[in-house]
């Protein structure tokens, strides 16, 4: 059986349950799937490689992943080397020219915003992953707005026939998003200048947005579990610079934060890492949830 015939057989087996959408979108993380949904609606057939409960640094290879990357017209990922452990391998296996770097179908969110924590010098001892800065750019709604503007342009470039639909959806999203940011800004005014401890430098953009003050990070270097010495140093530090909350990320092991919380009496706030897109959550729901959780710590 030739390759074409086997393709034909498989496609004949597929009943017409899903109407073929115009544009296939492959996202590395669910937040970009949620954003694409806002801008493209039913024009897009969206697939997210990871869920909100997965660490996007790591991924187990499944056949469907390669199949989805193969037929994608547009790939949306965070970039900044967040997916460096698997995306290059996946791209090679997919061999899809439309989503190759430099093509219109290759969209990296981190390329469209001002990055935080860009190392001043590239040192091998810092590891080779986050040389272009902190990749968790989706934790600031102002970044979402900037990225939405760029993604809208990209969608129009790929699918010009539906420009009207994308324009309409984008202007509605942008207007509502700015309103939401204003509401959150007012709600979170109370946490401006509040000291926090974080587990992993996952929330740097959120901290920047809300004007929180990060006094310590539990991980000495991103990805390394804190040593006992490092934890007691932080405990010492917190005596002189008391913090209001310890911010944890939902997909991480919570033992170090629970230890510190017990030692210091500072409450832990476990923030969901991203939008539960597969569970039907929207970007708005997720940000509202996060702002509620953080402001809930300050009465």
């Amino acid at each position, binding site marked *: 059986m030739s*390759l074409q015939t086997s393709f034909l057989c498989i496609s004949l087996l597929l009943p017409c349950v899903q109407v073929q959408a115009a544009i296939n979108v492959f996202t590395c993380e669910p937040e970009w799937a949620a954003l694409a949904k806002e801008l493209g609606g039913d024009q897009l057939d969206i697939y997210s490689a990871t869920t909100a409960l997965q660490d996007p640094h790591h991924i*187990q290879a*499944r056949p*469907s*992943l*390669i199949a989805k990357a193969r037929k994608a017209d547009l790939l949306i990922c965070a970039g900044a080397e967040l997916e460096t452990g698997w995306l290059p391998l996946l791209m*090679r296996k997919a061999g899809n020219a439309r989503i190759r770097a430099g093509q219109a179908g290759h969209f990296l969110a981190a390329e469209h915003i001002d990055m935080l924590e860009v190392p001043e010098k590239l040192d091998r001892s810092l590891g080779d992953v986050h040389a272009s800065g902190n990749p968790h750019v989706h934790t600031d709604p102002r970044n979402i707005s900037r990225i939405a503007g760029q993604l809208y342009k990209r969608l129009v470039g790929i699918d010009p026939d539906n420009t009207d639909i994308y324009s309409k959806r984008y202007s509605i999203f942008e207007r509502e998003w700015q309103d939401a940011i204003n509401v959150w800004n007012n709600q979170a005014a109370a946490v401006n200048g509040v000291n926090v401890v974080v587990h992993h430098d996952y929330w740097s953009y959120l901290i920047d947005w809300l004007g929180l003050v990060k006094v310590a990070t539990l991980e000495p*270097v*991103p990805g*390394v579990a804190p040593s006992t010495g490092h934890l007691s140093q932080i405990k010492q530090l917190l005596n002189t610079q008391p913090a209001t909350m310890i911010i944890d990320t939902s997909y991480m092991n919570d033992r170090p934060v629970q230890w510190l919380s017990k030692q210091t009496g500072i409450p832990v706030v476990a923030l969901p890492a991203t939008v539960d897109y597969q569970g039907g959550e929207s970007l708005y729901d997720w940000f509202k949830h996060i702002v509620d959780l953080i402001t809930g710590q300050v009465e």
Partner: protein
Amino acid sequence: MNLEGLDISILAPAFVAGLIVLMTHIPLGYEVLRRGIIFIDIAVAQIAGLGVIIAYTLGWDEHGIEAQIAAVTSALIGVWILNKLESRHGKHLEALIGTSFILAATGGILLLANNPHGGEHLKELLVGQILWVEWEQLLYAAIISIIVLSIWVQLREKIGSLGFYMLFAVAITVSVQLVGVYLVFASLIVPALAAIGQAKKSGLSLSIIIGTCGYASGLVLSALLDLPSGAVIVWMIAISALLIKIAMPLKTW
């Protein structure tokens, strides 16, 4: 059910990788069982990994041929030491293998204590995932495996214990990078275990059938159920062995 992943061009390289691994691991697995050194593959894989980490901390390029040389060299040094230990402390060999495994694993952690992402990156280099394999990579693996297999089949009486360990180190270093530690263990131990008590020829065909069925059904199932391929194949190798043993009682082959 997910029919999308059921694409021959996605599954074929992975299946061929499985066959290449089985080619050396079934015969070497018999010897591993005979010697009672079940966990040696995991220890050797870890020692090869430690070699790459040492090379990396010395500033070598972690890609390409340098890393491969470091991996094979340290695996060979590791098995040379294990072979020495076997002749002196044969009774406690399994305990020594286990100890060398944890020393190699924690040695890597200590060397990379301040370099988490380097470590992550190296782990992915060393522990392959079967779906990511490419034809070019398979060509090298096939050539090395054919050489290992022919030396083992033709010269096993002459090369002695050290010879076996050397061949084993090379075979494991190659296969771990293709399919990962779990599949290496499964390919080495399960088909050989199922052949215990069979005549030599029928045992070998039984092992080959179990291994081949395991990889084929595991890949198809992982596509249909949208699950990670490596883990599904491990289970299907074990299930194939079990079903075949139940269907074909001892010595009816």
